[in-house]
Protein backbone atom coordinates (compact mmCIF):
# COMPACT_ATOMS: atom_id res chain seq x y z
CA UNK A 1 0.00 0.00 0.00
CA UNK A 2 2.91 2.33 0.29
CA UNK A 3 4.73 1.97 -2.97
CA UNK A 4 6.05 5.25 -4.29
CA UNK A 5 4.79 7.08 -7.34
CA UNK A 6 7.00 7.46 -10.41
CA UNK A 7 9.81 9.95 -10.16
CA UNK A 8 7.86 13.15 -10.26
CA UNK A 9 8.53 16.32 -8.41
CA UNK A 10 6.25 19.08 -7.36
CA UNK A 11 6.56 22.45 -9.11
CA UNK A 12 7.55 23.75 -5.69
CA UNK A 13 9.87 20.86 -4.85
CA UNK A 14 12.69 21.82 -2.56
CA UNK A 15 10.75 24.65 -1.00
CA UNK A 16 8.93 24.76 2.28
CA UNK A 17 5.71 25.78 0.55
CA UNK A 18 3.63 22.65 0.02
CA UNK A 19 -0.07 22.13 -0.42
CA UNK A 20 -1.64 19.55 1.81
CA UNK A 21 -2.41 16.20 0.12
CA UNK A 22 -5.50 15.87 -2.11
CA UNK A 23 -7.11 13.56 0.44
CA UNK A 24 -7.10 16.42 2.95
CA UNK A 25 -8.52 18.83 0.36
CA UNK A 26 -11.34 16.41 -0.40
CA UNK A 27 -12.13 15.78 3.26
CA UNK A 28 -12.20 19.50 4.06
CA UNK A 29 -14.28 20.28 1.00
CA UNK A 30 -16.80 17.58 1.88
CA UNK A 31 -17.21 19.13 5.31
CA UNK A 32 -16.86 22.86 4.73
CA UNK A 33 -17.34 23.25 0.97
CA UNK A 34 -20.52 25.33 1.23
CA UNK A 35 -18.76 27.82 3.48
CA UNK A 36 -15.79 28.01 1.11
CA UNK A 37 -18.13 29.03 -1.67
CA UNK A 38 -19.98 31.42 0.64
CA UNK A 39 -16.62 33.10 1.24
CA UNK A 40 -16.28 33.68 -2.50
CA UNK A 41 -19.76 35.20 -2.79
CA UNK A 42 -19.10 37.45 0.21
CA UNK A 43 -15.84 38.64 -1.35
CA UNK A 44 -17.74 39.54 -4.51
CA UNK A 45 -20.43 41.29 -2.43
CA UNK A 46 -17.68 43.26 -0.69
CA UNK A 47 -17.00 44.79 -4.09
CA UNK A 48 -20.43 46.42 -3.99
CA UNK A 49 -20.55 46.71 -0.21
CA UNK A 50 -21.32 50.43 -0.32
CA UNK A 51 -24.38 49.81 -2.45
CA UNK A 52 -25.58 47.23 0.05
CA UNK A 53 -24.98 49.60 2.94
CA UNK A 54 -26.65 52.58 1.32
CA UNK A 55 -29.60 50.42 0.25
CA UNK A 56 -29.87 49.06 3.79
CA UNK A 57 -29.77 52.50 5.41
CA UNK A 58 -31.23 54.75 2.75
CA UNK A 59 -34.37 52.82 1.93
CA UNK A 60 -35.75 52.42 5.46
CA UNK A 61 -34.77 55.97 6.39
CA UNK A 62 -36.55 57.37 3.32
CA UNK A 63 -39.67 55.23 3.77
CA UNK A 64 -39.97 55.82 7.50
CA UNK A 65 -39.36 59.53 7.19
CA UNK A 66 -41.85 59.92 4.35
CA UNK A 67 -44.47 57.81 6.09
CA UNK A 68 -43.73 59.31 9.48
CA UNK A 69 -44.11 62.95 8.52
CA UNK A 70 -46.66 62.41 5.79
CA UNK A 71 -49.12 59.58 5.66
CA UNK A 72 -48.75 58.57 9.32
CA UNK A 73 -49.83 62.01 10.51
CA UNK A 74 -53.05 61.67 8.59
CA UNK A 75 -53.66 58.01 9.47
CA UNK A 76 -52.81 58.31 13.17
CA UNK A 77 -55.33 61.10 13.74
CA UNK A 78 -58.13 59.12 12.14
CA UNK A 79 -57.75 55.37 12.41
CA UNK A 80 -55.18 54.13 14.92
CA UNK A 81 -57.43 51.28 15.97
CA UNK A 82 -57.47 49.92 12.44
CA UNK A 83 -53.71 49.30 12.64
CA UNK A 84 -53.48 47.13 15.70
CA UNK A 85 -53.63 50.03 18.11
CA UNK A 86 -50.14 51.29 17.30
CA UNK A 87 -48.81 54.16 15.26
CA UNK A 88 -48.90 53.77 11.51
CA UNK A 89 -45.09 53.80 11.44
CA UNK A 90 -44.99 50.89 13.89
CA UNK A 91 -47.57 49.08 11.75
CA UNK A 92 -45.69 49.34 8.47
CA UNK A 93 -42.11 49.05 9.82
CA UNK A 94 -42.08 45.20 9.96
CA UNK A 95 -43.67 45.09 6.51
CA UNK A 96 -40.97 47.32 5.07
CA UNK A 97 -38.31 45.23 6.74
CA UNK A 98 -39.70 42.02 5.24
CA UNK A 99 -40.33 43.59 1.83
CA UNK A 100 -36.75 44.83 1.68
CA UNK A 101 -35.47 41.29 2.32
CA UNK A 102 -37.78 39.86 -0.35
CA UNK A 103 -36.69 42.48 -2.88
CA UNK A 104 -33.06 41.71 -2.10
CA UNK A 105 -33.87 38.03 -2.64
CA UNK A 106 -35.37 38.91 -6.01
CA UNK A 107 -31.98 40.38 -6.99
CA UNK A 108 -29.50 38.06 -5.30
CA UNK A 109 -31.21 34.82 -6.34
CA UNK A 110 -31.75 35.69 -9.99
CA UNK A 111 -29.02 37.58 -11.88
CA UNK A 112 -26.08 36.02 -9.98
CA UNK A 113 -27.50 32.55 -10.71
CA UNK A 114 -27.74 33.36 -14.40
CA UNK A 115 -24.21 34.72 -14.17
CA UNK A 116 -23.07 31.47 -12.59
CA UNK A 117 -24.55 29.20 -15.23
CA UNK A 118 -24.63 31.29 -18.34
CA UNK A 119 -23.11 34.74 -18.59
CA UNK A 120 -19.72 34.40 -16.95
CA UNK A 121 -20.13 30.76 -15.93
CA UNK A 122 -18.60 31.43 -12.51
CA UNK A 123 -20.10 28.25 -11.03
CA UNK A 124 -17.98 26.10 -13.31
CA UNK A 125 -14.72 27.23 -11.70
CA UNK A 126 -15.54 25.84 -8.25
CA UNK A 127 -17.31 22.92 -9.89
CA UNK A 128 -13.91 21.74 -11.19
CA UNK A 129 -12.60 21.85 -7.60
CA UNK A 130 -13.65 19.38 -4.88
CA UNK A 131 -16.87 21.34 -4.30
CA UNK A 132 -20.16 19.72 -5.33
CA UNK A 133 -23.06 21.49 -7.09
CA UNK A 134 -25.12 21.29 -3.88
CA UNK A 135 -22.35 23.01 -1.96
CA UNK A 136 -22.10 25.77 -4.55
CA UNK A 137 -25.84 26.40 -4.26
CA UNK A 138 -25.69 26.20 -0.46
CA UNK A 139 -22.71 28.56 -0.35
CA UNK A 140 -24.56 31.18 -2.32
CA UNK A 141 -27.58 30.80 -0.03
CA UNK A 142 -25.40 31.14 3.08
CA UNK A 143 -23.83 34.35 1.76
CA UNK A 144 -27.18 35.86 0.78
CA UNK A 145 -28.63 34.87 4.16
CA UNK A 146 -25.82 36.81 5.82
CA UNK A 147 -26.71 39.76 3.64
CA UNK A 148 -30.37 39.46 4.71
CA UNK A 149 -29.30 39.44 8.34
CA UNK A 150 -26.92 42.38 8.03
CA UNK A 151 -29.39 44.43 6.03
CA UNK A 152 -32.26 43.59 8.37
CA UNK A 153 -30.24 44.46 11.47
CA UNK A 154 -29.41 47.89 10.01
CA UNK A 155 -33.03 48.31 9.01
CA UNK A 156 -34.23 47.30 12.45
CA UNK A 157 -31.87 49.72 14.21
CA UNK A 158 -33.29 52.56 12.13
CA UNK A 159 -36.83 51.36 12.84
CA UNK A 160 -36.00 51.32 16.55
CA UNK A 161 -34.55 54.83 16.32
CA UNK A 162 -37.86 55.98 14.86
CA UNK A 163 -39.52 54.42 17.91
CA UNK A 164 -41.40 52.03 15.66
CA UNK A 165 -40.59 48.83 17.58
CA UNK A 166 -42.17 49.17 21.01
CA UNK A 167 -41.82 45.49 22.01
CA UNK A 168 -38.66 44.01 23.53
CA UNK A 169 -39.01 41.12 21.07
CA UNK A 170 -38.73 43.45 18.12
CA UNK A 171 -35.31 42.08 17.12
CA UNK A 172 -37.12 38.89 16.18
CA UNK A 173 -38.43 40.72 13.12
CA UNK A 174 -34.88 40.49 11.74
CA UNK A 175 -35.24 36.70 11.74
CA UNK A 176 -38.75 36.95 10.29
CA UNK A 177 -37.44 39.09 7.44
CA UNK A 178 -34.54 36.72 6.79
CA UNK A 179 -36.87 33.74 6.74
CA UNK A 180 -39.25 35.54 4.40
CA UNK A 181 -36.34 36.39 2.11
CA UNK A 182 -35.32 32.74 1.92
CA UNK A 183 -38.87 31.53 1.56
CA UNK A 184 -39.40 33.77 -1.46
CA UNK A 185 -35.84 33.54 -2.75
CA UNK A 186 -35.14 29.81 -2.82
CA UNK A 187 -37.99 28.81 -5.16
CA UNK A 188 -36.92 31.77 -7.28
CA UNK A 189 -33.33 30.51 -7.24
CA UNK A 190 -34.53 27.13 -8.48
CA UNK A 191 -36.40 28.87 -11.29
CA UNK A 192 -33.36 31.00 -12.15
CA UNK A 193 -31.21 27.86 -12.27
CA UNK A 194 -33.59 26.33 -14.79
CA UNK A 195 -33.40 29.24 -17.25
CA UNK A 196 -31.15 28.62 -20.24
CA UNK A 197 -31.75 31.89 -22.09
CA UNK A 198 -32.42 35.30 -20.61
CA UNK A 199 -35.57 36.60 -22.23
CA UNK A 200 -36.41 39.19 -19.59
CA UNK A 201 -37.90 36.64 -17.18
CA UNK A 202 -36.44 38.36 -14.13
CA UNK A 203 -37.94 41.73 -15.05
CA UNK A 204 -41.30 39.94 -15.35
CA UNK A 205 -40.81 38.38 -11.91
CA UNK A 206 -40.20 41.83 -10.42
CA UNK A 207 -43.13 43.38 -12.24
CA UNK A 208 -45.76 40.68 -11.95
CA UNK A 209 -44.81 38.79 -8.80
CA UNK A 210 -42.75 40.94 -6.45
CA UNK A 211 -44.70 44.17 -6.90
CA UNK A 212 -48.20 42.62 -6.53
CA UNK A 213 -46.99 40.71 -3.48
CA UNK A 214 -45.59 43.94 -2.04
CA UNK A 215 -48.85 45.79 -2.60
CA UNK A 216 -51.33 43.05 -1.64
CA UNK A 217 -49.63 41.47 1.37
CA UNK A 218 -50.99 43.70 4.09
CA UNK A 219 -47.95 45.92 3.81
CA UNK A 220 -49.61 49.33 4.08
CA UNK A 221 -53.00 48.23 5.47
CA UNK A 222 -54.35 45.08 7.10
CA UNK A 223 -55.02 42.26 4.68
CA UNK A 224 -58.64 41.87 5.79
CA UNK A 225 -59.45 45.33 4.49
CA UNK A 226 -58.93 44.01 0.97
CA UNK A 227 -61.80 42.40 -0.98
CA UNK A 228 -61.89 38.61 -0.49
CA UNK A 229 -61.24 38.24 -4.20
CA UNK A 230 -57.61 39.40 -3.86
CA UNK A 231 -56.99 38.45 -0.24
CA UNK A 232 -55.58 35.07 -1.32
CA UNK A 233 -52.54 36.88 -2.71
CA UNK A 234 -51.56 37.66 0.85
CA UNK A 235 -52.25 34.15 2.06
CA UNK A 236 -49.73 32.67 -0.36
CA UNK A 237 -47.30 35.54 0.00
CA UNK A 238 -44.08 35.16 2.03
CA UNK A 239 -44.26 38.94 2.53
CA UNK A 240 -47.59 38.69 4.35
CA UNK A 241 -46.55 35.73 6.52
CA UNK A 242 -43.22 37.40 7.33
CA UNK A 243 -44.86 40.76 8.00
CA UNK A 244 -47.49 39.32 10.33
CA UNK A 245 -44.76 37.46 12.18
CA UNK A 246 -42.74 40.67 12.42
CA UNK A 247 -45.76 42.57 13.74
CA UNK A 248 -46.29 39.99 16.48
CA UNK A 249 -42.72 40.55 17.53
CA UNK A 250 -42.36 44.32 17.18
CA UNK A 251 -45.60 45.39 18.83
CA UNK A 252 -47.42 42.26 20.00
CA UNK A 253 -49.92 42.25 17.15
CA UNK A 254 -52.90 40.27 18.33
CA UNK A 255 -53.57 37.13 16.36
CA UNK A 256 -54.24 33.48 17.10
CA UNK A 257 -51.11 31.57 18.17
CA UNK A 258 -52.11 28.94 15.60
CA UNK A 259 -51.86 31.58 12.91
CA UNK A 260 -48.41 32.58 14.16
CA UNK A 261 -47.31 28.96 13.92
CA UNK A 262 -48.80 28.75 10.43
CA UNK A 263 -46.68 31.77 9.41
CA UNK A 264 -43.49 30.06 10.59
CA UNK A 265 -44.39 26.68 9.09
CA UNK A 266 -45.43 28.24 5.78
CA UNK A 267 -42.18 30.19 5.48
CA UNK A 268 -40.03 27.21 6.46
CA UNK A 269 -41.90 24.86 4.13
CA UNK A 270 -41.56 27.19 1.15
CA UNK A 271 -37.85 27.71 1.85
CA UNK A 272 -37.31 23.96 2.17
CA UNK A 273 -39.27 23.28 -1.02
CA UNK A 274 -37.17 25.91 -2.81
CA UNK A 275 -33.95 24.38 -1.50
CA UNK A 276 -34.90 20.89 -2.72
CA UNK A 277 -35.71 22.23 -6.18
CA UNK A 278 -32.58 24.39 -6.27
CA UNK A 279 -30.37 21.48 -5.31
CA UNK A 280 -31.92 19.31 -7.98
CA UNK A 281 -31.48 21.99 -10.65
CA UNK A 282 -27.83 22.62 -9.75
CA UNK A 283 -26.95 18.93 -9.75
CA UNK A 284 -28.79 18.31 -13.01
CA UNK A 285 -27.35 21.31 -14.81
CA UNK A 286 -23.76 20.87 -13.69
CA UNK A 287 -23.68 17.11 -14.12
CA UNK A 288 -24.48 17.11 -17.84
Amino acid at each position, binding site marked *: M*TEASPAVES*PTAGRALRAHPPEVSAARARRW*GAFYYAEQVLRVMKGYGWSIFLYSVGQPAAYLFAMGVGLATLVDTNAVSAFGGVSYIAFIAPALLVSAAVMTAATEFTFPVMDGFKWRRVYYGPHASPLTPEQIAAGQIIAVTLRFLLQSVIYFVIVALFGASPSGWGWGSVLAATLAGLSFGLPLMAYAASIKEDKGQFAMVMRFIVMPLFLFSGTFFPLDTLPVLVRWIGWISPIWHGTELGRVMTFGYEESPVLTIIHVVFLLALAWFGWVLTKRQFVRRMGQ
Partner: protein
Amino acid sequence: MPELHSAEGTSKKPVSAHETGPEKHKEPAAPQYVITAENLTKTYGDVIAVDGISFSVPAGESFGLLGPNGAGKSTTMKMIGGVSQRTSGNLTIMGLDPEQNGPEVRAHLGVVPQQDNLDEELKVRDNLLVYGRYFGLPMSYLKPKADELLEFAQLTDKAKAKVDALSGGMKRRLTIARSLINEPRILLLDEPTTGLDPQARHILWDRLFRLKEQGVTLILTTHYMDEAEQLCDRLIVVDKGRIMAEGSPAALIRDYSTREVLELRFGSERNASIGAELEGIGERLETLPDRVLIYTHDGEAALEEVSARGLRPLTSLVRRSSLEDVFLRLTGRSLVD
Protein backbone atom coordinates in the same frame (compact mmCIF):
# COMPACT_ATOMS: atom_id res chain seq x y z
CA MET B 1 -6.02 5.58 -0.58
CA PRO B 2 -6.05 6.04 -4.36
CA GLU B 3 -4.64 3.35 -6.56
CA LEU B 4 -2.71 3.51 -9.79
CA HIS B 5 -2.97 0.77 -12.37
CA SER B 6 0.14 -0.96 -13.57
CA ALA B 7 0.93 -1.20 -17.24
CA GLU B 8 0.13 -4.90 -17.28
CA GLY B 9 -3.33 -4.08 -16.08
CA THR B 10 -3.32 -7.05 -13.76
CA SER B 11 -2.04 -5.67 -10.49
CA LYS B 12 -3.00 -2.45 -8.81
CA LYS B 13 -0.35 -0.42 -7.08
CA PRO B 14 -1.74 2.03 -4.61
CA VAL B 15 0.16 5.25 -4.67
CA SER B 16 -0.61 8.79 -3.77
CA ALA B 17 0.66 11.25 -6.33
CA HIS B 18 2.01 13.32 -3.50
CA GLU B 19 3.95 10.46 -2.01
CA THR B 20 7.55 10.17 -2.99
CA GLY B 21 10.07 7.83 -1.50
CA PRO B 22 13.30 5.98 -2.05
CA GLU B 23 11.53 3.20 -3.96
CA LYS B 24 10.56 5.49 -6.80
CA HIS B 25 13.74 4.77 -8.76
CA LYS B 26 13.49 0.98 -8.44
CA GLU B 27 10.83 0.21 -10.99
CA PRO B 28 11.31 2.17 -14.18
CA ALA B 29 9.83 -0.54 -16.40
CA ALA B 30 6.23 -0.50 -15.28
CA PRO B 31 4.56 2.87 -15.82
CA GLN B 32 1.70 3.48 -13.46
CA TYR B 33 -1.43 4.85 -14.94
CA VAL B 34 -3.01 7.90 -13.40
CA ILE B 35 -5.92 7.69 -15.84
CA THR B 36 -7.52 4.64 -17.39
CA ALA B 37 -10.59 4.68 -19.60
CA GLU B 38 -12.24 1.55 -20.97
CA ASN B 39 -15.06 1.74 -23.48
CA LEU B 40 -15.89 5.19 -22.22
CA THR B 41 -19.20 6.32 -23.70
CA LYS B 42 -21.31 9.43 -23.36
CA THR B 43 -24.57 10.08 -25.12
CA TYR B 44 -26.88 13.08 -25.07
CA GLY B 45 -30.26 11.71 -26.11
CA ASP B 46 -29.66 10.15 -29.51
CA VAL B 47 -26.34 11.89 -30.02
CA ILE B 48 -23.24 9.83 -29.24
CA ALA B 49 -20.61 12.32 -28.11
CA VAL B 50 -18.02 9.74 -27.00
CA ASP B 51 -18.27 6.30 -28.52
CA GLY B 52 -16.50 3.64 -26.48
CA ILE B 53 -12.97 5.01 -26.30
CA SER B 54 -10.20 3.35 -24.28
CA PHE B 55 -6.84 4.78 -23.27
CA SER B 56 -4.44 4.93 -20.34
CA VAL B 57 -2.14 7.72 -19.27
CA PRO B 58 0.97 7.08 -17.17
CA ALA B 59 2.14 9.59 -14.57
CA GLY B 60 4.22 12.43 -15.98
CA GLU B 61 3.10 11.97 -19.57
CA SER B 62 1.82 14.76 -21.73
CA PHE B 63 -1.20 13.21 -23.42
CA GLY B 64 -3.24 14.87 -26.11
CA LEU B 65 -6.69 14.47 -27.59
CA LEU B 66 -6.55 15.83 -31.11
CA GLY B 67 -9.65 16.31 -33.19
CA PRO B 68 -11.97 18.82 -34.81
CA ASN B 69 -14.72 20.70 -33.00
CA GLY B 70 -17.45 18.32 -31.90
CA ALA B 71 -15.18 15.27 -31.89
CA GLY B 72 -15.92 14.50 -28.23
CA LYS B 73 -12.70 15.88 -26.72
CA SER B 74 -14.28 18.28 -24.25
CA THR B 75 -16.89 15.72 -23.22
CA THR B 76 -14.10 13.27 -22.48
CA MET B 77 -12.29 15.93 -20.46
CA LYS B 78 -15.41 16.66 -18.44
CA MET B 79 -15.77 13.00 -17.58
CA ILE B 80 -12.10 12.82 -16.55
CA GLY B 81 -12.61 16.01 -14.54
CA GLY B 82 -15.42 14.35 -12.60
CA VAL B 83 -18.05 16.89 -13.64
CA SER B 84 -19.95 14.88 -16.24
CA GLN B 85 -21.41 11.42 -15.78
CA ARG B 86 -20.52 8.76 -18.31
CA THR B 87 -23.26 6.76 -19.99
CA SER B 88 -21.25 3.52 -19.86
CA GLY B 89 -17.73 2.17 -19.62
CA ASN B 90 -15.11 2.41 -16.91
CA LEU B 91 -13.01 5.37 -15.89
CA THR B 92 -10.54 5.74 -13.06
CA ILE B 93 -8.44 8.73 -12.06
CA MET B 94 -5.67 7.90 -9.57
CA GLY B 95 -7.49 4.60 -9.14
CA LEU B 96 -10.73 6.32 -8.16
CA ASP B 97 -14.05 6.41 -9.98
CA PRO B 98 -14.88 10.11 -10.51
CA GLU B 99 -18.61 9.43 -10.18
CA GLN B 100 -18.24 7.71 -6.83
CA ASN B 101 -15.45 9.89 -5.49
CA GLY B 102 -15.96 13.23 -7.22
CA PRO B 103 -14.39 15.50 -4.57
CA GLU B 104 -11.46 13.10 -4.06
CA VAL B 105 -10.75 12.91 -7.80
CA ARG B 106 -11.10 16.64 -8.34
CA ALA B 107 -8.77 17.32 -5.41
CA HIS B 108 -6.01 15.70 -7.51
CA LEU B 109 -6.68 17.79 -10.59
CA GLY B 110 -5.97 21.20 -11.98
CA VAL B 111 -8.44 22.21 -14.67
CA VAL B 112 -8.12 24.79 -17.41
CA PRO B 113 -11.53 24.89 -19.11
CA GLN B 114 -12.10 25.77 -22.73
CA GLN B 115 -13.95 28.92 -21.70
CA ASP B 116 -12.42 31.09 -18.98
CA ASN B 117 -14.63 31.25 -15.89
CA LEU B 118 -12.60 33.56 -13.69
CA ASP B 119 -14.26 35.75 -11.08
CA GLU B 120 -14.20 38.96 -13.07
CA GLU B 121 -15.40 41.03 -10.15
CA LEU B 122 -12.44 39.97 -8.04
CA LYS B 123 -8.88 41.12 -8.39
CA VAL B 124 -6.31 38.93 -10.08
CA ARG B 125 -4.60 37.74 -6.90
CA ASP B 126 -7.92 37.25 -5.10
CA ASN B 127 -8.97 34.84 -7.83
CA LEU B 128 -6.11 32.58 -6.80
CA LEU B 129 -6.81 32.93 -3.08
CA VAL B 130 -10.51 32.20 -3.44
CA TYR B 131 -9.90 29.21 -5.67
CA GLY B 132 -7.38 27.79 -3.23
CA ARG B 133 -9.96 28.02 -0.47
CA TYR B 134 -12.13 25.52 -2.38
CA PHE B 135 -9.39 22.99 -1.64
CA GLY B 136 -9.44 23.89 2.05
CA LEU B 137 -5.97 25.39 1.75
CA PRO B 138 -5.02 27.83 4.53
CA MET B 139 -4.17 31.47 3.84
CA SER B 140 -0.68 30.94 5.27
CA TYR B 141 -0.03 28.70 2.24
CA LEU B 142 -2.21 30.52 -0.26
CA LYS B 143 -0.76 34.00 0.00
CA PRO B 144 2.86 33.11 -0.85
CA LYS B 145 1.66 30.47 -3.33
CA ALA B 146 -0.49 33.04 -5.15
CA ASP B 147 2.53 35.34 -5.45
CA GLU B 148 4.64 32.46 -6.76
CA LEU B 149 2.03 31.54 -9.35
CA LEU B 150 1.57 35.13 -10.45
CA GLU B 151 5.28 35.24 -11.11
CA PHE B 152 5.08 31.95 -12.99
CA ALA B 153 2.26 33.37 -15.12
CA GLN B 154 4.07 36.68 -15.61
CA LEU B 155 1.22 38.54 -13.95
CA THR B 156 2.90 39.90 -10.83
CA ASP B 157 2.40 43.51 -11.89
CA LYS B 158 -1.32 42.79 -12.46
CA ALA B 159 -1.92 41.28 -9.01
CA LYS B 160 -4.22 44.08 -7.90
CA ALA B 161 -5.93 44.61 -11.24
CA LYS B 162 -9.50 43.55 -11.89
CA VAL B 163 -9.74 40.49 -14.10
CA ASP B 164 -11.85 42.24 -16.72
CA ALA B 165 -8.93 44.59 -17.36
CA LEU B 166 -6.72 41.70 -18.56
CA SER B 167 -6.12 40.71 -22.17
CA GLY B 168 -7.25 37.31 -23.43
CA GLY B 169 -3.76 35.86 -23.11
CA MET B 170 -3.38 37.18 -19.56
CA LYS B 171 -6.73 35.69 -18.57
CA ARG B 172 -5.66 32.37 -19.97
CA ARG B 173 -2.39 32.50 -18.02
CA LEU B 174 -4.32 33.42 -14.88
CA THR B 175 -6.62 30.45 -15.44
CA ILE B 176 -3.59 28.20 -15.71
CA ALA B 177 -2.08 29.76 -12.57
CA ARG B 178 -5.40 29.20 -10.79
CA SER B 179 -5.42 25.56 -11.82
CA LEU B 180 -2.03 25.08 -10.14
CA ILE B 181 -2.98 26.52 -6.76
CA ASN B 182 -3.43 23.05 -5.22
CA GLU B 183 -0.20 21.71 -6.79
CA PRO B 184 -2.05 19.15 -8.90
CA ARG B 185 -0.24 16.15 -10.28
CA ILE B 186 -2.66 16.04 -13.23
CA LEU B 187 -3.50 19.12 -15.26
CA LEU B 188 -6.46 19.05 -17.66
CA LEU B 189 -6.22 21.65 -20.41
CA ASP B 190 -9.18 22.00 -22.75
CA GLU B 191 -8.18 23.97 -25.84
CA PRO B 192 -5.76 26.08 -23.81
CA THR B 193 -4.68 28.43 -26.59
CA THR B 194 -7.81 28.81 -28.70
CA GLY B 195 -8.39 32.44 -29.55
CA LEU B 196 -4.93 33.61 -28.53
CA ASP B 197 -2.47 35.45 -30.74
CA PRO B 198 0.79 33.64 -31.69
CA GLN B 199 2.88 35.42 -29.06
CA ALA B 200 0.46 34.56 -26.26
CA ARG B 201 0.35 30.96 -27.47
CA HIS B 202 4.11 30.64 -27.31
CA ILE B 203 4.24 32.05 -23.78
CA LEU B 204 1.61 29.51 -22.74
CA TRP B 205 3.44 26.65 -24.40
CA ASP B 206 6.59 27.66 -22.56
CA ARG B 207 4.76 27.61 -19.23
CA LEU B 208 3.15 24.26 -19.95
CA PHE B 209 6.46 22.81 -21.01
CA ARG B 210 7.96 23.86 -17.68
CA LEU B 211 5.18 22.06 -15.84
CA LYS B 212 5.82 18.99 -17.91
CA GLU B 213 9.48 19.17 -16.96
CA GLN B 214 8.41 19.28 -13.33
CA GLY B 215 6.59 15.99 -13.77
CA VAL B 216 3.01 17.20 -13.97
CA THR B 217 0.82 14.93 -16.09
CA LEU B 218 -0.74 17.05 -18.82
CA ILE B 219 -3.98 16.05 -20.50
CA LEU B 220 -4.56 18.36 -23.39
CA THR B 221 -7.24 18.77 -26.02
CA THR B 222 -6.55 20.81 -29.09
CA HIS B 223 -7.43 21.13 -32.71
CA TYR B 224 -4.08 22.77 -33.43
CA MET B 225 -1.67 20.21 -34.77
CA ASP B 226 1.37 22.38 -34.04
CA GLU B 227 0.28 22.59 -30.42
CA ALA B 228 -0.10 18.83 -30.23
CA GLU B 229 3.33 18.35 -31.80
CA GLN B 230 4.90 20.85 -29.39
CA LEU B 231 3.38 19.59 -26.18
CA CYS B 232 2.29 15.97 -26.46
CA ASP B 233 4.38 12.87 -25.84
CA ARG B 234 1.51 10.80 -27.08
CA LEU B 235 -1.91 11.52 -28.43
CA ILE B 236 -5.09 10.04 -29.70
CA VAL B 237 -6.73 11.35 -32.83
CA VAL B 238 -10.46 11.56 -32.16
CA ASP B 239 -13.27 11.98 -34.64
CA LYS B 240 -17.01 11.54 -34.08
CA GLY B 241 -16.37 10.25 -30.59
CA ARG B 242 -14.02 7.49 -31.70
CA ILE B 243 -10.27 7.03 -31.57
CA MET B 244 -8.91 6.99 -35.10
CA ALA B 245 -5.25 6.51 -34.19
CA GLU B 246 -2.94 6.57 -31.20
CA GLY B 247 0.78 7.19 -30.79
CA SER B 248 3.46 9.83 -30.51
CA PRO B 249 3.23 12.71 -33.02
CA ALA B 250 6.30 11.41 -34.86
CA ALA B 251 5.02 7.84 -34.94
CA LEU B 252 1.62 8.90 -36.22
CA ILE B 253 3.21 10.91 -39.01
CA ARG B 254 5.51 8.03 -39.84
CA ASP B 255 2.66 5.50 -39.85
CA TYR B 256 0.00 7.51 -41.61
CA SER B 257 1.85 9.94 -43.81
CA THR B 258 5.06 10.40 -45.78
CA ARG B 259 8.11 12.42 -44.82
CA GLU B 260 7.23 15.38 -47.03
CA VAL B 261 4.22 16.88 -48.72
CA LEU B 262 4.12 18.89 -51.92
CA GLU B 263 1.28 21.39 -51.95
CA LEU B 264 0.18 22.67 -55.35
CA ARG B 265 -2.44 25.25 -56.22
CA PHE B 266 -3.78 25.35 -59.74
CA GLY B 267 -6.78 27.56 -59.02
CA SER B 268 -10.05 26.40 -57.53
CA GLU B 269 -11.52 25.34 -60.91
CA ARG B 270 -8.54 23.24 -62.02
CA ASN B 271 -7.60 21.61 -58.70
CA ALA B 272 -10.29 18.98 -59.03
CA SER B 273 -9.49 18.02 -62.63
CA ILE B 274 -5.71 18.04 -62.48
CA GLY B 275 -5.54 14.78 -60.52
CA ALA B 276 -5.28 12.54 -63.55
CA GLU B 277 -2.29 14.50 -64.89
CA LEU B 278 -0.46 14.15 -61.58
CA GLU B 279 -1.03 10.41 -61.38
CA GLY B 280 2.08 8.47 -60.42
CA ILE B 281 3.92 11.33 -58.74
CA GLY B 282 4.64 10.60 -55.08
CA GLU B 283 3.01 7.87 -53.05
CA ARG B 284 -0.45 9.33 -52.69
CA LEU B 285 -2.52 12.21 -53.95
CA GLU B 286 -5.12 14.19 -52.03
CA THR B 287 -7.30 16.73 -53.79
CA LEU B 288 -8.76 19.47 -51.63
CA PRO B 289 -10.99 22.32 -52.83
CA ASP B 290 -8.17 24.87 -52.60
CA ARG B 291 -5.08 22.73 -53.28
CA VAL B 292 -3.66 19.38 -54.28
CA LEU B 293 -1.42 17.49 -51.85
CA ILE B 294 1.18 15.03 -53.08
CA TYR B 295 2.54 12.77 -50.34
CA THR B 296 6.14 11.86 -51.04
CA HIS B 297 9.47 11.19 -49.37
CA ASP B 298 11.16 13.77 -51.60
CA GLY B 299 9.11 16.88 -52.22
CA GLU B 300 11.66 18.64 -54.44
CA ALA B 301 11.93 15.62 -56.74
CA ALA B 302 8.14 15.47 -56.97
CA LEU B 303 8.00 19.16 -57.88
CA GLU B 304 10.57 18.60 -60.65
CA GLU B 305 8.42 15.77 -61.98
CA VAL B 306 5.40 18.08 -62.02
CA SER B 307 7.39 20.63 -64.04
CA ALA B 308 8.70 17.90 -66.34
CA ARG B 309 5.10 17.01 -67.21
CA GLY B 310 4.58 20.58 -68.32
CA LEU B 311 2.22 21.46 -65.48
CA ARG B 312 2.48 24.99 -64.12
CA PRO B 313 0.87 25.40 -60.66
CA LEU B 314 0.08 28.94 -59.46
CA THR B 315 1.96 28.23 -56.23
CA SER B 316 3.94 25.30 -54.90
CA LEU B 317 5.23 24.46 -51.45
CA VAL B 318 7.34 21.60 -50.14
CA ARG B 319 6.87 20.98 -46.41
CA ARG B 320 7.28 18.28 -43.82
CA SER B 321 4.29 16.13 -43.02
CA SER B 322 2.22 17.17 -40.02
CA LEU B 323 -0.55 15.79 -37.89
CA GLU B 324 -2.97 17.65 -40.13
CA ASP B 325 -1.99 15.21 -42.86
CA VAL B 326 -2.50 12.30 -40.52
CA PHE B 327 -5.96 13.53 -39.69
CA LEU B 328 -6.77 14.10 -43.33
CA ARG B 329 -5.64 10.60 -44.15
CA LEU B 330 -7.68 9.07 -41.34
CA THR B 331 -10.89 11.01 -41.74
CA GLY B 332 -10.78 12.61 -45.15
CA ARG B 333 -11.40 15.96 -43.48
CA SER B 334 -9.35 18.91 -42.31
CA LEU B 335 -8.85 19.45 -38.58
CA VAL B 336 -10.13 23.00 -38.49
CA ASP B 337 -13.33 23.14 -40.53
